C-alpha cells in the first residue's frame, strides 16, 4: 500500500475511536499509524501500561485486530508464543493465511522490566515486530522515572528537589541495544513524521524475523506541555537530534532524516514543564550535560551511519 494521506484516509482505523487515552496522547497515534501501515492481517499484543489500560476496559475494546494483553514485562514472550502457535498450525495445514505479529510496549515495559523478554524474543528470531512507544517515564502509574527518562527530567521518583535537580542518570540507548542483537531490522521513529514511521513499519513487517521500532511518544501529562503540541514535541526531539530518525537494516545504519540545522536542546526542553527547574541559574550545568550527551550520541550515530 502506498503511504498517501488520500489512501490512508479511506482505510478503516484498526484502533477505534472512543478509547480513553488522554487528549494529545502520541502513544495512541503511533499505534493507529502502525496498524494502518500493515498490509496483511496482524495480531497485536500490548504490555501493561497506558495503551493497554485505555484501550481495553472490559467489556469494551478499541482493538479491531486480535489482541492480547498478558502482563507488564512479557509482551515479547507472549507474542513469541502466538507466533510459535502460528508456525505450528500453519505447518500442520490448519491455517493458511499470512499473518503478522506486533508487540507494543511502553518504555517501562520495554527498556526496564520487559528487556529480558524482549532480548530473548529477538535472539530466538521470532517473526514479529516489537514497537516501543517511548513516552519516557511510567506514565500509567503516575510519571515515575524509567530507563528512558532523559537526564534532568523531573518525575515523581526523580523530582526536582532542593538538592537533586531531577533525574541524575542519562537515558538508556535501547535502540542500539536491540540493534546489537543483529536482527534484520531496527529503527527509531516519531509519529509526527508519519510517512517515515509507517514506511518503517512496512519494512519491519516485510522482513522474515524479528524487527524493532522505537517510537517517541510525547506525553502532555508527563512532560507537561499543552496537549495540542504533541506532534510539535516529537518534531523538536528530532530537530534537536535528541531523537534521531534512523534505521539499521541488516547491520547497516542509515539516517532517514537529517535536520538541516541541529537546534539546541533548549528548544525542546524549554517547552516542557518537566525541565522547568533546569532554567534556574544553579541548574544550568544540567542542561550543559544533557546537550553534551545529545552531541556525543549524535556524533556516534553519524559515524555509524557513515559506516
Amino acid at each position, binding site marked *: 500500500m502506498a503511504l498517501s494521506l488520500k489512501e490512508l484516509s479511506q482505510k478503516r482505523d484498526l484502533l477505534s475511536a472512543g478509547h480513553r487515552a488522554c487528549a494529545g496522547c502520541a502513544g495512541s497515534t503511533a499505534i493507529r499509524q502502525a496498524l494502518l501501515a500493515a498490509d496483511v*492481517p*496482524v*495480531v497485536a*499484543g500490548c504490555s501493561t501500561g497506558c495503551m*493497554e*489500560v485505555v484501550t*481495553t*476496559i*472490559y*467489556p*469494551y*475494546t478499541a*482493538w*479491531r*485486530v*486480535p*489482541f*492480547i*494483553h*498478558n*502482563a507488564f*514485562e*512479557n509482551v*515479547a*514472550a*507472549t*507474542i*513469541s*508464543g*502466538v*507466533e*510459535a*502457535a*502460528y*508456525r*505450528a*498450525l500453519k*505447518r*500442520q495445514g490448519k*491455517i493458511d*493465511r499470512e*499473518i503478522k505479529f506486533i508487540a507494543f510496549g511502553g518504555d517501562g515495559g520495554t527498556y526496564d522490566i520487559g528487556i*529480558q*523478554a524482549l*532480548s*530473548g524474543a529477538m*535472539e*530466538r528470531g521470532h517473526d514479529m515486530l516489537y514497537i516501543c512507544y517511548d513516552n519516557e517515564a511510567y506514565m500509567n502509574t503516575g510519571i515515575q522515572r524509567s530507563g528512558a527518562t532523559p537526564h534532568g527530567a523531573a518525575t515523581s521518583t526523580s523530582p526536582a528537589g532542593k538538592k537533586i535537580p531531577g533525574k541524575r542518570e542519562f537515558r538508556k540507548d535501547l535502540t542500539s541495544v536491540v540493534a546489537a542483537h543483529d536482527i534484520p531490522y531496527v529503527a527509531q521513529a516519531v509519529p509526527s513524521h508519519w510517512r517515515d514511521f509507517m514506511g518503517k513499519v512496512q519494512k519491519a513487517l516485510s522482513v522474515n524475523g524479528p524487527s524493532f521500532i522505537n517510537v517517541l511518544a510525547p506525553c502532555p501529562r508527563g512532560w507537561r506541555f499543552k496537549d495540542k503540541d504533541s506532534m510539535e514535541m516529537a518534531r523538536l526531539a528530532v530537530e534537536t537530534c535528541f531523537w534521531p530518525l534512523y534505521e539499521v537494516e541488516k547491520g547497516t545504519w542509515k539516517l532517514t532524516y537529517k535536520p538541516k540545522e541541529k537546534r539546541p536542546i533548549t528548544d525542546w526542553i524549554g517547552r516542557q514543564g518537566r525541565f522547568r527547574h533546569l532554567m534556574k541559574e544553579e541548574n544550568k550545568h544540567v542542561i550543559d550535560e544533557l546537550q553534551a550527551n545529545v552531541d556525543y550520541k549524535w556524533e556516534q550515530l553519524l559515524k555509524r551511519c557513515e559506516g
Partner: protein
Amino acid sequence: MGKIVALTGNDAAGTAMIQIRPDVVAAFPITPQTELMHKFAEAVADGDVDTEFVSVESEHSAMSAAIGASAAGARVMTATSANGFALMWEVVYIAASYRLPIVMTLVNRALSGPINIHCDHSDSMGGRDAGWIQIHSENSQEVYDNLIQGVKIAENRDVLLPVMVTSDGFILSHTLERMEILDNQGVQDFVGENHPQHTLLDVDHPVTFGPLDLPDYYFEHKRQQVLAMEQAKGAILEVGREFKKLSGRDYWLFEEYQMEGAERAIVALGSTAGTVKETVDALREKGEKVGLIKLRVFRPFPKEELIEALKGIKVLAVFDRSHSFGGFGGPLFSEIRSALYGSDLSLQVLNYIYGLGGRNISLKEIEWVYSDLKEVIETGKVRERINYLGVRG
C-alpha cells in the same frame, strides 16, 4: 496394546508429551526438570514431533509464551520446578484466569532459600490458589497417565483450566521404574483434536484477551473460575473412566488403600504414598487396622468424597511435605481439618510435616506415626497436634 518399559519420571513425562504431540512447548531448564525437556528436545530434533519448541530465556517467559500460544489456539505444554515455578507465579494466575488449557509438569523441588534441589511440595503448594487443577502422582506410571488425562481434562468445554501434574523431584524424576506406555495412536486418539472457541489467529473474528477488568466485572469472572473448578471434578472422573478403557488402570480423585475397616489412616501426596503402602501392608499383617488415602486431585479439593472415605476412622495423620510458616499446620492439614469441621465425623486429625528439602522418610518413621495414632485412640489425648517427622530439634 501397552508396552512394558523402564523409565524415569522425567522420561515418562517426556514420553507422554511426545505422544501427545503438543503444537507448542515453551520451557526453561531447571533441575530436576531438565531431563524431561532434553527428552522432548531430542524428539523435536529427530523430527518425531512437529512441535514448535520455544527455548525461552526464563520460566516467566515460558509461561508467558505458553499463554500467547494457547490463546492463539495451540495445544501447549511446559514443565518446571521450584524457583522456576515461583518466577512464573504472576503469569500462572493469568493462564488460569484467561481459561487456557495449558498442561504443565511440575517436578517438585524445595523452594529457595537456602537453595536446595531436592523434593518437597513447597512449590506446588505455593500455586494452590492460582486456579490450576492440581494432580499428584505416586510413580512414573502416574506421571505419564496423569499428563495424558490432563490434556483432556484441561480442554473439556466445561472446564477450560490449566492442569498441573506433579512428579516428586529425584524420587520420581530420576528413578527408573517399570511401567507401561500406550501406543502413539492410542494416545493421539484419546487426546483427540483441540477445538478452541476463540483464538487470536482467527483474524476474521478478532477477540481481545486480557482486558482491564474493574470492580464492575472482575468478581464475576473470578466466580466463573470457581464454577469451572467445580465442574472439573466431573470431567476428571469422566476422563478417568475413559482412560481406564484405554489402559486398564483406575483413576479417581484419590486412592483408598486398605481403608476397609481401618481405624487409623494417613493422608499423603505423591511418592510417599508408595512408602506408606509398604508400612500399611506390614502392619495389616500384624492385624492392625491401618489404611492410607493417597490424594491424587488436590485442586479441585474433593471434600465430600474425603469425608465419606474417612467414616470409621478414629485418628487421621495428614502428611505435609511443605509448611505454611506461622500457619496452623501444613496446607494439606489445614484443608482437610477444615473440610472435616462441621461434618458428622468427629475424628482427631494430626499433622506431620516431613521431607522438606528432600529429607528421606523411612518405613520406620511411618510406623511411628501409626503408633502415635494408636496412642491417641488409647489415651484419648493428642500430645502434639503439629509434628515434625525426621528432623533434628
